[in-house]
């Protein structure tokens, strides 16, 4: 049997969470809105309407690209990409062709380098709604800024892909905060291009693109399914051709949608309604990034001596990381970083993780809760008195449980210390 090597590239679409749409003033927040309520002549593509680019969306694209170690281009422009579809109001999509805002980046995942080919900005299309034998078009989504990230075909297994995507999701949603990146709502969409090659690094003459996958788990399943399916077919000497497939999450299989035999001719040409962009290198260099997940992880490990696991669990949720940093910023807390980390990691949260927004709580309720906990945890109180700082966090955790609400930790902590001192 011939040995085949998977060769996989990813296309990721991310809707930006700007206030307004890409080329008009309509709200970009279309989810759950009444159909065709967030529209205007521009995003409906009415005669005479013209696109005016959203500067914020361009900035966000450049921030994403910078975080992906891309080269930000000083010259860039929009192009028209023509195709016919009922949800595309102008008969073309404003996208970017040969001068994207950025290209040639990479991400390091699992100690491997995965190259990013390009990061470009475009507008989203409307949505078709099929209902009782009729099809309706909702243009609320039309014109929402959409960033497309294209990787090189550098992946050969589904685990790396899942880890790559999870990191990207964390980065964009929680660290850069430029997209809600909600896969169920479709604000982050993933499309792997999967093929098998006999010679490592040499692209075979076909690729299979899988669309409409809405979770990382399903991407992993899709990739594994495709590798298996394609291997079997190749072993049966079936010649594979370019095609687009969909993913059926119930059956955990991919299914044929259409061939991509004929290369689509999108008749790209520069968008005449939007002048090309020139950026100064010094301005591009000034674009600031927050501390990125892998940098934070590294700092937690080397400076704060957290274990890999602790650091990972904190950095995977920016709210936990932010709370952690708030607590350790208190005097003397630095030495307790590990304990504070455990305290935060072990806390139970509600599903929505509202931890960063403490609720107002009656001072009396707080005092009452502290009293109850102190009474029933004598051992911990004694431990604390005898200098075991660890105990404080245990007690703190118990108090929070009793209160059952998100409270201002700082306030609670100082109140707790006050009460324990008064007991002494």
């Amino acid at each position: 049997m011939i040995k085949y090597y998977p060769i996989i590239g990813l296309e990721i679409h991310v809707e930006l969470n700007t206030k307004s749409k890409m080329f008009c003033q309509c709200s970009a927040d279309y989810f759950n809105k009444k159909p065709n309520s967030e529209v205007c002549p521009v995003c409906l593509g009415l005669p005479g309407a013209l696109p005016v680019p959203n500067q914020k969306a361009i900035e966000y694209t450049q921030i994403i690209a910078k975080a992906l170690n891309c080269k930000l281009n000083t010259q860039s422009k929009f192009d028209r990409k023509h195709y016919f579809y009922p949800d595309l109001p102008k008969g073309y999509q404003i996208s970017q062709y040969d001068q994207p805002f950025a290209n040639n980046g990479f991400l390091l995942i699992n100690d491997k380098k995965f190259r990013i080919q390009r990061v470009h900005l475009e507008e989203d299309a409307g949505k078709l709604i099929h209902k009782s034998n009729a099809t309706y078009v909702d243009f609320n989504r039309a014109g929402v800024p959409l960033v497309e990230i294209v990787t090189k075909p550098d992946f050969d297994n589904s685990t790396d892909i899942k880890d790559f995507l999870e990191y990207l999701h964390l980065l964009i949603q929680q660290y850069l905060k430029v997209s809600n990146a909600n896969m169920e709502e479709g604000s982050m969409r993933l499309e792997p291009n999967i093929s098998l090659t006999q010679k490592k690094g040499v692209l075979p003459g076909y690729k299979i693109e899988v669309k409409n996958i809405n979770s990382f788990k399903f991407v992993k399943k899709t990739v594994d399914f495709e590798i298996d399916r394609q291997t079997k077919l190749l072993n049966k000497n079936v010649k594979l051709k370019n095609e687009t497939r969909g993913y059926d999450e119930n059956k955990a299989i991919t299914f044929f949608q259409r061939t991509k035999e004929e290369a689509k001719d999108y008749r790209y040409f520069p968008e005449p309604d939007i002048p090309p962009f020139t950026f100064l290198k010094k301005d591009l260099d000034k674009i600031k990034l927050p501390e990125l997940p892998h940098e934070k992880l590294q700092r937690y490990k080397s400076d704060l001596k957290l274990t890999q696991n602790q650091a990972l669990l904190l950095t995977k949720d920016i709210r936990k990381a932010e709370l952690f940093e708030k607590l350790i910023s208190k005097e003397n807390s630095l030495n307790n970083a590990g304990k504070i980390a455990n305290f935060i990691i072990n806390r139970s949260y509600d599903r929505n993780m509202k931890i960063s927004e403490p609720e107002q709580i009656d001072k009396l309720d707080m005092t009452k809760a502290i009293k109850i906990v102190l009474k029933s945890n004598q051992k911990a109180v004694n431990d604390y008195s005898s200098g075991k700082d660890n105990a404080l966090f245990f007690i703190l955790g118990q108090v929070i449980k009793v209160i059952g609400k998100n409270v201002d930790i700082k306030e609670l902590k100082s109140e707790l210390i006050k009460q324990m001192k008064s007991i002494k």
Partner: protein
Amino acid sequence: MKLIGKTLTELLSLIDKKQISEEETANYFLKRAIKYNRKLNVFINLRNKIKFQKKGVLKGIPIPFKDNFLTKDINTSAASNLLKDFIPPYNSTVVQRLLNNGSSILGKTNMDAWAHGSSTETSDFGPTKNPWDITRSPGGSSGGSAAAVSAYLSPIAIGSETAGSVRQPAAWCGIVGLKPTYGRVSRYGVIAMGSSLDCPGVLALSVKDSAIILSLIAGKDKYDATTSDISVPNYQYLIKSPKKYKIGIPEEYLKDTEKDIKNNILDAVKIYEKMGHKIVKIKLMSPKYSVSVYTIIQRAEVSSNLSRYDGLRYGKTRDFFGEEAKKRIMLGTFTLSQGYVDEYYKKAQKIRTLIIEDFNKAFKEVDLILAPTTPNTAMKLGESSKYSFFGELMDRLNEPSSVAGLPGISIPSGLDKKELPTSMQIIGRSFEEESILNLAYQFEQETNFFNLYEKQSKNYPD
């Protein structure tokens, strides 16, 4: 009081002095429009009542707008059956700015469908007749707007030009046609033809009137990213101080031009020389290259701009596109297709750059360029169908400056032997409208355009 032939400037002054009222003026033009529309087919949509205003500098003067300018709640079709039932929910910026300045809407003027043509004969609502000779075309695509001014259904009208669509009908109708620099006036709300070339323009009786209107419609528009934020000068004030210019005559533009047109220009040159301007011969790239470049770029953009009329909206399927639009869609689609885009569209863009450089070179030597507007005077209706690329050939003297985005103004230069108006155009540097207006105004002051208008308006009594 006899109003016939009064310029916008004169009318505004009469209203100011309370010698006529806003209402009288508005109704006067509405009456004339109704009276002569049947004969000339100027309007696709003529208002039956003017919602005149009593405010702003324009004091309710009703303006005819070319039917590719969107007017809120008033049908806008670009003279195509496909958009026959389209009622826009918004005003184009030009319409809005004029309304804000007190104008009203007289009606929507006929044009070549989608502005595809130079005769109004591609209109789905029949051609407009040239007021000078109703067996002839008024030119196009802004033919309805030019005819409206020529027959004094209004002292001014709004048109648009992609390459020649304001200047050429102005020339054939013996009036003033001003095409500003690309980006000087907002395209927002103008049904797109060739987006990198389209430019709203003014048709007028007098140079000063066109300057007044330009001052009101020009300037940055937050809805059009291609408008410039260069400040808008007070054109009508600036033209009052005559300046001396070095004027270039491009020999290439006089070749293949009718003898009478050429002779009238040479006479105009003598007048300018006498006034103290310096005239020099210059060499420009042959207009024939611009014809090719323009045709390719415009068709490509047309095919893209018309793709939104896909049969799903506007209540009409694509069968409602006329012959000319279909031809342009096909040619444009072809020039953008894989395997051909390098050979046609990209090559055309490169030559476009050369044309721009060619003008830049000329403008190092001279301040302004003087040339015929059209190679011939108004043609008979029906002639256009004998030529393929009729529009491109008729507009060949406008295409180079349009492709370069430069401002130009066409003004009457006399009559030919057939008693039809001849014209010449003045082309200037980008965003130097004040210079072309200044030189045009000097000629008007000197010659009163040979009283062409007085002769012509006798044929259209009140």
